[in-house]
């Protein structure tokens, strides 16, 4: 199986889907001539031309709306946001148009659109550029939200998102773009709504998604050295959420830690905890703990930033607490 970067896996998914379906087009800032702010769209303008790889003005709300309008007419737009921090400007179109038109039209107008781009903090980009928006987006009925952590999942979930007849939010990670992994060639579609057990274990379940899969796996290694067998469950899809896999894992391990890049209040982890207390109550040996970004805007200073982010050490500490080892 070829090894690709996360970036190239996304590129491959876009290219294959654009080759497969002429109604698929890519639109966003710097996607064409510049080849993508993060080079995800490298080579696509040359292959598909400017009508299908469309550079936009810096007008997130406007081009998000153009995408939704095109989807109303039956095209399958892929709207790239340079980062999800800027997509906050486009929330009206995502929330009020993309997510609702099917419902308020009584089922007449599906919106087969993908909104994608990097989400969450990178390094020292400070408060306005270092935010994880998944709980905002996953809150909205009418949207699907996926957050792939590996190159294979990035390809498979983006392909699934493009083929879905609903608006799908694809949350990527700036810090993930350069990560490498095996990626199946050609037809590799990861179904939306399925979590993935990235590492099996018996003593504690670490639930994570997107970038936090990396510290969670590191934490699991450290825990193994300490005699604690951790199971790492990658949510992959935040809406719909794979309750079955989460619950099965916690029923097995009896303990759970949820890690996410977002802030703690009303975060994705809060939703996960809701599922677990409801569906696995009698299997819990300890309260579920969460590891999140500190409840502050992201500071610029390197040390402060590190202190604000989830880390393997924080996950290990939480896992030890739910195992009553500390």
């Amino acid at each position, binding site marked *: 199986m070829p090894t690709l970067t996360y970036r190239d896996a996304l590129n491959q998914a876009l290219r294959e889907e654009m080759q497969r379906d002429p109604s698929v087009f890519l639109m966003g800032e710097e996607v064409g001539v510049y080849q993508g702010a993060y080079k995800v769209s490298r080579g696509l303008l040359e292959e598909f031309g400017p009508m299908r790889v469309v550079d936009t003005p810096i007008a997130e709300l406007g081009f998000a709306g153009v995408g939704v309008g095109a989807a109303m007419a039956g095209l399958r737009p892929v709207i790239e946001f340079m980062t999800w921090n800027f997509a906050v400007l486009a929330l009206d179109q995502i929330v009020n148009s993309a997510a609702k038109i099917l419902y308020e039209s009584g089922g007449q107008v599906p919106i087969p659109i993908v909104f994608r781009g990097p989400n969450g903090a990178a390094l020292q980009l400070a408060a306005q550029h270092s935010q994880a928006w998944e709980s905002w987006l996953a809150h909205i009925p009418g949207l699907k939200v996926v957050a792939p952590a590996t190159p294979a999942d990035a390809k498979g979930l983006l392909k699934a998102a493009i083929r879905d007849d609903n608006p799908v939010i694809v949350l990527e990670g700036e810090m993930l773009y350069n990560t490498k992994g095996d990626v199946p060639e050609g037809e590799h579609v990861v179904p939306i709504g399925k979590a993935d057990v990235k590492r*099996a274990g*018996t*003593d504690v379940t670490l639930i994570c998604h997107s970038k936090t899969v990396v510290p969670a796996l590191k934490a699991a290694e450290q825990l*193994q*050295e300490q*005699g*604690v*067998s951790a199971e790492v469950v990658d949510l992959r899809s935040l809406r719909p959420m794979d309750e079955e896999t989460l619950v099965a894992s916690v029923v097995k391990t*009896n303990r759970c830690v949820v890690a996410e890049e977002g802030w703690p209040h009303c975060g994705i982890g809060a939703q996960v905890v809701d599922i677990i207390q409801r569906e696995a*109550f*009698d*299997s*819990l*040996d*300890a309260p579920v703990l969460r590891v999140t970004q500190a409840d502050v805007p992201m500071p610029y200073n390197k040390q402060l930033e590190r202190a604000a982010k989830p880390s393997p050490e924080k996950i290990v500490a939480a896992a030890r607490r739910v*195992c*009553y080892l500390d």
Partner: protein
Amino acid sequence: MATTVFMEALSPTMEEGRLVKWHKREGDAVQVGETLAEVETDKAIMDLQARADGILRQVAVAEGQTVPVGKEIAVIVAPGETVGAGRGTGDEGRVAPSPAATVAAPSPAPRHSPPAAAAADAAPVKASPLARRMAKESGVDLKLLTGSGPGGRVVRRDLETAAARPAATVSASAPVAPVPPPPSPVPVSRTGAPYEDVPLTQIRKTIAKRLATSLGPVPHFFLTTEVDMERAAEARDALNRQLGDRGKVSFNDIILKATALALTKHRACNAWFQEDHIRYWNEVHIGMAVAVEDGLITPVIRNADVKPLLEIGREAGDLADKARSRRLQPHEYTGSTFSVSNLGMFDIDQFTAVINPPEAGIIAVGSIVQKPVVVDATVLPRRRMRITMSCDHRVIDGATGAGFLKTLKEMLENPLAMLL
């Protein structure tokens, strides 16, 4: 004070039970732990045991009758006690209490309402939801446990520790049973009784259950080989001379290490059978059977393949101590990928061990014995040791097991091979 006998939930999923046979009759003397009746659950025929000493009265369910869990089916009263108003059958006086029961039962009163228990009743017990479920399923009274979690919360490990400890936690409504003497060291006594029935302790029950799930459903087969331990003995002596006060290496440590290393070369034997799949482990965690006072437990040496001999020795010692003093934490006795049972110190030449599911194999190690062996046409005294491997045939085939055993034998016969 009368103790009500209920139809008990004798399986986790049982909702009603059919009374197959009464072992005691109206007016019989009964003792705690004695079988009152056989009850057919949704899974099996189980014994319903007395939870108090006294006389059986008010038998309200006939043989063959099915009643829901929780239904009163009889009462046990103290000798001479009359049953409460509206409940008496009027014939209490007819059956004289048996002398044995009278002797066996000290005054029940203090056990039924100890002040401590009454105080504990007042405050709700803090326990994790899992601990509550486990307690309910195993009939353990949470109030009798000391929680090790924050604020005294009873958590899973407290239940597990309790399960490994005899009798301390008998269910809520029952008095505490007298601790039975450990069976093995007790010499046969001429007390006049032809036999003595000793109730199963929780650990004995667990052992019984776990091993029954092994030898029954797991298709075992056995491979035996004899290993020349001369070079291992020389290596051990040399190492110990060099270590001096810094520690000691035992044969057992060498066997554990060699087993772990051999497994790294035979992943097919380092596996779990998982019903619909086989999990081949890439990590080697060796379970080490340790005999404890009333049973055995298998603490785990994790990643034994990469640990130095001294560390294995130290860990094995610590774990064995903890096992004997019942301080093992769950993570210290779960998750092994292969097990070693060594009865060499008990002068056993050779034996077969029962696989510890879901593992697929275990080796049984006998004593090191000097034997005459033909070496280059000369009979020489050599230290020899027999190893018998039990294999789960669903995972390991004959040749696979033999291959592993061959590697293990080579490593023990030439410890330098462990460096390869």
